[in-house]
């Protein structure tokens, strides 16, 4: 039997998911014994024309990382869908939008203005912004169109499996790849490489009375490494986030930021976290409760850090 053909692609993301695969280290050498890598632009010299030249359904599994933020991302997602038997949304960006989807709190104009004009290291007195077409003396140049709204892979093309994480931890990556090689696959639409229980379930910290007396920002405190972070007032996304990551952030005395996405049967990680957090406020009357809410300066950025595109609201009004 011939080896399964595998592809990796990188859309709108930081590249950390590519590193997560490289992190397999020596196992990567074993991997090439088990599979044929037919497309992996980040690691080897492949061109989109190579992909276009393949007959449909040539690739057995494509691991697609990154959100869909421009017309190139969308085009490649559609192309890879056509060329692959199985398409996997790999990592938080492809799964829920990830960090790029925080751009959904503004629009194209807002992003461009910030990036090409307002950042303190930018000097752009003529207010030059990217254009999709430019007529040069030598001919017309084009670049992909930047979208107002970041989408998940699933909102763009049909997706078979989801692997959460920013990035997925190496043990889980290894396990997921082994599952594909074994051919013993879960039902379509499953989340792979993660637990079905919340991070709190595997967190070793001691939980007490589940009350918050004051919300503290991460930089304002060095939390007790033995006790539940939420009870110490640090917003930890554990209750609303899938486990399976090995609670590495918590071991480093940092709160969970939610990169493993929503729990099974929940559709909105942010709303669930808001609910869990607010119910712990140690306040009974309106005035005291309002003080707690004031201590959360950016609810969307906190509760939907990795899942805004995939959430119920998807984006803000403007």
């Amino acid at each position, binding site marked *: 039997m011939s080896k399964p053909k595998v592809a990796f692609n990188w859309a709108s993301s930081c590249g950390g998911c590519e590193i997560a695969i490289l992190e397999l280290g020596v196992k990567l050498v074993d991997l090439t014994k088990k599979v044929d890598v037919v497309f992996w632009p980040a690691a080897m010299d492949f061109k989109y024309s190579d992909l276009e030249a393949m007959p449909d359904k040539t690739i057995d599994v494509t691991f697609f990382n990154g959100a869909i933020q421009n017309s190139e991302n969308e085009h490649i997602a559609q192309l890879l869908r056509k060329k692959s038997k199985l398409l996997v949304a790999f990592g938080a960006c492809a799964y829920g939008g990830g960090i790029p989807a925080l751009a959904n709190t503004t629009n194209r104009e807002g992003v461009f203005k910030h990036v090409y004009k307002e950042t303190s290291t930018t000097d752009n007195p003529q207010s030059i912004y990217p254009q999709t077409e430019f007529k040069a003396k030598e001919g017309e140049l084009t670049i992909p169109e930047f979208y107002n709204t970041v989408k998940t892979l699933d909102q763009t093309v049909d997706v078979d499996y989801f692997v959460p994480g920013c990035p997925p931890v190496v043990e889980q990556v290894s396990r997921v790849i082994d599952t594909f090689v074994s051919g013993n696959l879960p039902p379509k639409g499953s989340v792979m490489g993660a637990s079905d229980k919340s991070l709190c379930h595997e967190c070793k910290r001691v939980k007490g009375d589940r009350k918050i007396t004051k919300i503290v920002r991460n930089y304002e405190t060095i939390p007790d490494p033995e006790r539940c972070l939420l009870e110490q007032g640090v917003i930890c996304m554990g209750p609303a986030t899938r486990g399976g990551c090995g609670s590495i952030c918590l071991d480093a005395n940092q709160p969970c930021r939610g990169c493993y996405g929503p729990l099974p049967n*929940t*559709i909105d990680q*942010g709303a669930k976290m808001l*609910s869990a957090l607010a*119910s712990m406020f140690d306040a009974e009357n*309106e005035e005291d409760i309002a003080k707690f*809410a004031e201590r959360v300066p950016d609810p969307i950025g906190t509760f939907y850090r990795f899942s805004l595109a995939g959430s*119920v*609201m998807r984006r803000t009004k403007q």
Partner: protein
Amino acid sequence: MSKFEPKIVGFLCRWCAYTGADLAGTSRIKYPPNVNPIRVNCSGRVDPTLVLKALTIGADGVLIAGCHPGDCHYTSGNVKTLRRFKLLQKMLDQFGIERERVRLEWVSASEGERYARIVEQMTEEIRQLGPLGWKAKMEALA
């Protein structure tokens, strides 16, 4: 042009607000028919997800109504609602949803008149704001 009729989803707690709404009906109090009531066991059961979901699938507003603080059938469900609501309000500001569209009110079983006035006021305020039309707005911003 016909007058815009806001579509409001009302999550009413069965012990107080829903009974209060019932009283408004049996007392023949006149009030706008714009709230579609959903009976829930406690306002504390109203997950913020439900509010967001309602707004994204066609509601122009959401009314959550429960027992007055101290009167909760389950002791403190309504206090939990209030805690969530304060934070939800702040998040809805970020999403660009006007405050008038999502309200939390306390209505006891004997306050049929109060329920009717709340619905009247809320309907009028949302009528002034116009339709939310979240889905169309999202599609326009693809």
